């Protein structure tokens, strides 16, 4: 297990307190700074590793930024705190974005990000809870995170805890049958402290979702499965924060976050080939320039 970076946790906590207290404009600016740092980190990690999933990393970055810096009740110095909010990145291939977000919060040192996918690194191409604090369950194969989230939410209720469960899914991943098994289960048990966020970038590995196995109308489908649905711009910090308010209906909450795959770098945005393409030297330089 990789070590916690306590001074980094202090820095994260201080920023988090400022974010919690700031008026909305300043809060959005602080969150934008964090997201910018994460995206730059992702570019450097994928450049060094020669592999990664840059398109999905960028579409989910703002969602992860909001969760870890404005929503989740966590203590990175106590990753095993029983009452922590659970966070599960079901689209585990976007590990670079998750690792950067966790490292900023001090779950481990940001220096470790340089080892992403290097031989014997704790930072595998998909997250491993046995090695990385802050990871609740190992993901990578799609359609796994939500059933685990349902179990954690059932457990929280059974234990009488106040903790909540947050699962982030890719939209392409909603083609997996196991997700719909879990959606039914969560609604059946009225798990109102379970929040899913679907990173709706409308692209999957090989093509657009709607050309592959269409998901529309996704919000209506989720509502029909018994969820309280909130559709937001997945790059709008205020909208995201508001979307994580408590359930009003006693139902579990599904946030359909409309995003742009590759968000933040012009030549990567909304381009199917950038699912897991690796930028060359010039593209790395240009990406970092656009993210400065």
């Amino acid at each position, binding site marked *: 297990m990789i070590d916690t970076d306590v001074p980094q946790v202090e820095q994260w906590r201080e920023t988090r307190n400022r974010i919690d207290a700031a008026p909305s404009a300043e809060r959005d600016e602080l969150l934008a700074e964090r997201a910018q740092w994460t995206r730059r980190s992702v570019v450097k990690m994928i450049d060094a590793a020669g592999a990664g999933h840059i398109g999905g990393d960028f579409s989910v970055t703002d969602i992860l930024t909001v969760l870890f810096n404005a929503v989740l009740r966590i203590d990175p110095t106590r990753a095993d705190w029983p009452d922590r909010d659970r966070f599960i990145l079901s689209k585990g291939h976007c590990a670079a974005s998750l690792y950067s977000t966790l490292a900023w919060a001090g779950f481990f040192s940001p220096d470790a990000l340089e080892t992403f996918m290097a031989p014997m690194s704790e930072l595998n191409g998909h997250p491993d809870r046995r090695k990385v604090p802050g990871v609740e369950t190992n993901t990578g194969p799609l*359609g796994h995170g939500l059933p685990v989230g349902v*179990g954690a939410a059932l457990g929280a209720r059974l234990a009488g805890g106040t903790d909540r469960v947050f699962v982030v899914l890719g939209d392409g991943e909603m083609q997996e049958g196991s997700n719909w*098994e*879990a959606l039914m289960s969560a609604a059946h048990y009225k798990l109102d402290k379970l929040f899913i966020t679907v990173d709706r970038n409308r692209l999957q590995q090989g093509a657009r979702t709607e050309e592959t196995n269409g998901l529309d109308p996704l919000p209506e489908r989720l509502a029909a499965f018994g969820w309280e649905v909130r559709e937001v711009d997945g790059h709008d910090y205020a909208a995201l924060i508001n979307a994580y308010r408590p359930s009003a209906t006693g139902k579990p909450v599904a946030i359909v976050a409309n995003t742009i795959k590759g968000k933040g770098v012009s030549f990567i945005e909304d381009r199917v080939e950038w699912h897991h393409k690796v930028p060359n030297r010039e593209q790395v330089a240009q990406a970092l320039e656009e993210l400065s």
Partner: protein
Amino acid sequence: MSVDVSTPAVYDNRTAFAEELIALAEQDDRVVAVCNDSVGSSNLVAFRDRFPNRLINVGIAEQNMVGVGAGLADRGFIPFVCAAGPFLTGRSLEQIKADVAYSAHRVILCGMSPGMAYGELGPTHHSVEDFSWLRALPDLDIIVPADRAQTRQALRDVVANPRPSYIRVGRHKVPDVTTESTPWERGRMQTLREGSDITLIGTGTLVSRALQAADLLTVDGTEARVLNASWIAPFDDDAIVRAAAETRAIIVAEEANVAGGLGAAVASVVAQLARDRVPLRILGLREFAPTGSTDFLLDYFRLTAEGYVTAAREALADA
């Protein structure tokens, strides 16, 4: 030497499983059960009546069921995830790999009515691939209690030391072959009978048959050692090394497909020995079973005392 031909009492291990699970749940709030519409067939009716909030029936959704178990473990519970063996292991194999074994979530997977317990229902309902599938996963214990006492022992063990585990909970009735005083140690086979001529290894349903075979072999003047493979993983390599050194042949029988099962585990040890590579026979399935009751199918595949005896005589002739 006379052979005892009286018919011993036989028991469905699910009864001991159900009773022990309730007893453990009384003592430990972390014990919960998860199932797939199998409250009845997993013998969880009494558990549900006693602990209505601690039985989670996710319906006919096995992938979700195993993931839910992993999530409960993440939240600090000790979930017993119960379903008929074929659906638990086949339908949810990737969840068992990623969510349980690789994630090191302390889920107890209970494969109910394993092997060919569902006889006439056919190969879709037989759980004879579970050893092969699950042996390929690191960090997952595979436990096969041979009788009522070991079923209770296995449950107490995994609650005291929770770890990712798969337990075969037998439905086909078997006699008692152990007592409360039979040693129980993780990853160790038990020697149920000492012998120096040949080693008979059985697991689950086959253990009492191996003991009967050892009795039958005495008429040949053959002294058979009988090992109960109550642990398929971690595997007891040492017991096999000793059997190869101290006896002249090994017979393994399993209510499972032989491709990658218990016999394959034994063969892997024997084949890698520098010496004492004793003759080995493996009895098990090599095809989808035809139609028939469990007893009929066990006979059909020679998973009987007589099957052991015939294989033992052949192997000793080769030794």
